């Protein structure tokens, strides 16, 4: 119990199979309280499945889950008043207005009438929903829906907030605003677990786990992950990116090459000494002149490094 005061979610060996498919594979997870914890992973990597197991919606095939001192799924019902869940797919009622939806959620969490009115008023102001209060949820824009969903998920002031790709239909400005709100909530002591496949969002998390094919392939703070990438990152400003890429692909120790406009971002094994010089030399031999520069790894590099298996040497 002492420990559970610091740890909001602890999972050990968490596994979920759908027939032959292993959607989540032996996942160990420790999510500290009052933090924003990210789940970063490509489509189908098991983010939603994991979140569903954490709140008791799916029964794990194997492994144990403890959320805020409660064993899930056995004690999941006791947990329900304390968690807020924002589903990946919009799950409020599209044929009801914003106000009706929030009234409903307030009722479901047994808020008294006065308390409910007060809270809804606060949320209207906080999430900028006043002017759409009487609009049907189904007719709202992606950003408005997302604000409504967050308002609904936080209406009862949960201690733990599970957000499954909350920003997938939202423009960059709305996303930035949204993350502002998340930081406010974390500041007030809410633990937030958020899944995403946006690097910029992952970078904002206090800690994150990278999932790939149901396995956790890395975890830590964004800084830690970048420091432990075990790759050198080199940027090549190529005039003929296509041919440059072809030439570099033959080089020993190249892990991946990603084209960013006229630049190529090259991940190369740490074991290669002086990668800048290596690359310059290779390009010179091929009579290509291109400035080469060693850069700091970012989270995207980490993502590429941990989600691509070295044998299938990527050239794209």
């Amino acid at each position, binding site marked *: 119990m002492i420990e559970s005061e610091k740890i909001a979610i602890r999972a050990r060996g968490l596994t979920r199979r759908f027939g032959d498919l292993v959607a989540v594979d032996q996942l160990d997870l420790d999510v500290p309280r009052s933090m924003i914890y990210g789940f970063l992973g490509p489509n189908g990597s098991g983010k939603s499945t994991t979140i569903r197991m954490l*709140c008791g919606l*799916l029964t794990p095939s194997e492994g144990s889950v403890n959320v805020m001192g409660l064993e899930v799924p056995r004690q*999941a019902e006791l947990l329900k008043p304390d968690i807020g869940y924002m*589903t990946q797919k919009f*799950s409020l009622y599209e044929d009801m207005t914003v106000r009706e939806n929030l009234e409903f*959620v307030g009722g479901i969490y*047994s808020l008294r009438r006065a308390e409910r009115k007060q809270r809804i008023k606060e949320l209207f102001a906080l999430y900028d929903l006043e002017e759409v209060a009487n609009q049907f949820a189904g007719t709202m824009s992606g950003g408005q829906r997302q604000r409504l969903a967050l308002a609904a998920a936080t209406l009862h002031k949960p201690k733990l907030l599970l957000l499954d790709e909350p920003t997938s239909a939202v423009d960059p400005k709305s996303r930035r605003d949204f993350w502002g709100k998340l930081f406010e909530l974390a500041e007030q002591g809410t633990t937030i677990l958020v899944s995403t496949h946006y690097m910029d969002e992952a970078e904002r998390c206090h800690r994150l786990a990278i999932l790939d094919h149901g396995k956790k392939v890395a975890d830590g703070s964004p800084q830690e992950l970048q420091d432990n990438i075990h790759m050198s990152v080199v940027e090549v400003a190529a005039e003929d990116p296509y041919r440059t890429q072809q030439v570099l692909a033959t080089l020993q120790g190249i892990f991946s090459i990603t084209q960013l406009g006229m630049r190529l971002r090259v991940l190369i094994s740490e074991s290669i000494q002086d990668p800048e010089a290596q690359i310059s030399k290779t390009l010179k031999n091929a009579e290509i002149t291109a400035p080469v520069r060693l850069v700091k790894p970012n989270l995207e590099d980490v993502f590429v490094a941990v989600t691509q298996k070295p044998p299938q040497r990527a050239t794209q």
Partner: protein
Amino acid sequence: MKVLPRLFAVILKEFTQLRRDKLTFGMIVGIPLLELILFGYAINTDVRNLTAAYTDQANTHLSRQFIADLSSTQVLNFEHRVAAAADLDELLRDGTISVAVFLPPDFDRRVADGNRSPAQLLVDGSDPTILGIARQLGNMPISFDVQGARAPQVGAFEIRTYYNPERRSAVNIVPGLIGVILTMTLTLFTAVAIARERERGNLELLINTPVSTTELMVGKVIPYIAIGLIQVSLIILLGKLVFDVPLRGSLEDLYLVSLTFIAANLALGLFISTAVKTQFQAMQLSIFVMLPSILLSGFMFPFDGMPAIARYIGEVLPITHFIRLIRGIMLREAGIADMGHELIILLAFTAAMMTAAILRFRKRLD
């Protein structure tokens, strides 16, 4: 406590959605109206000019007079005259005519005796309208003057009904129709209720809240109970106004029985809802329940005339018991006390279905 606000939230939500769902809302009023009008034509007894044929094997003054009298009522329109009774059968079977009149060679003597029906009326019983007419004609006395005849103790016709041994009447249909309409609409409403939330993704949010299964189920049923009562009132009222269907028993009994039956259908629907994944499956299963409800409940065919297996199936259906109750109350002036066991069966059915639905429903996705 905490149960009430949650229950109330679910009820209010269902009402809000119901109010917006034009199709469902239309079904609530539209189906009773449509069914009543459709069946209303069938049970309309004021029909004229039925195509008919006759065989006059007596061919006396009296028999010719009799046919002429029948023609003059304008109910029957004699288009054929044939020589043998077998020809009448033929014409009936191929649908050329719907009524046939057969006058036997000893017609005059039968009229004079007055204790046997002098003529035979052959009726296509597959059409309830014609049945009604036949009954009217059957009661028609032979009014013309026969020397030495006593006042006849029996009607002019001995009626032989083809294809439908039970002679249903207008009033018999409307009470049964309440059962059919409630089954058609209410079972479907709750059957799709949970499947719809699942399909639209609402369920994933809902089952992650503290709302309990019982609150959810009861909350979904209550709004439709109100709907069911509105439908019952509508049918009774229209039945009375348009078709003059009597209500001989008490109104309280009628509503009590209807309420129980409404609950039974909603519970059945909920149970279906827990067994299916999609709204489409829910609809299919509802239709699967609806067909036997119409065919095996005693609404279409007399219950006692059905084979044993069909009667067993019928006994399992709530509508069978409801039809017995409602016909008793509306037509025979029976009270609930007379048919208490039928009501108990309905209550037991409701409790069993509701319990099964609550136990089956899991706040899980797997």
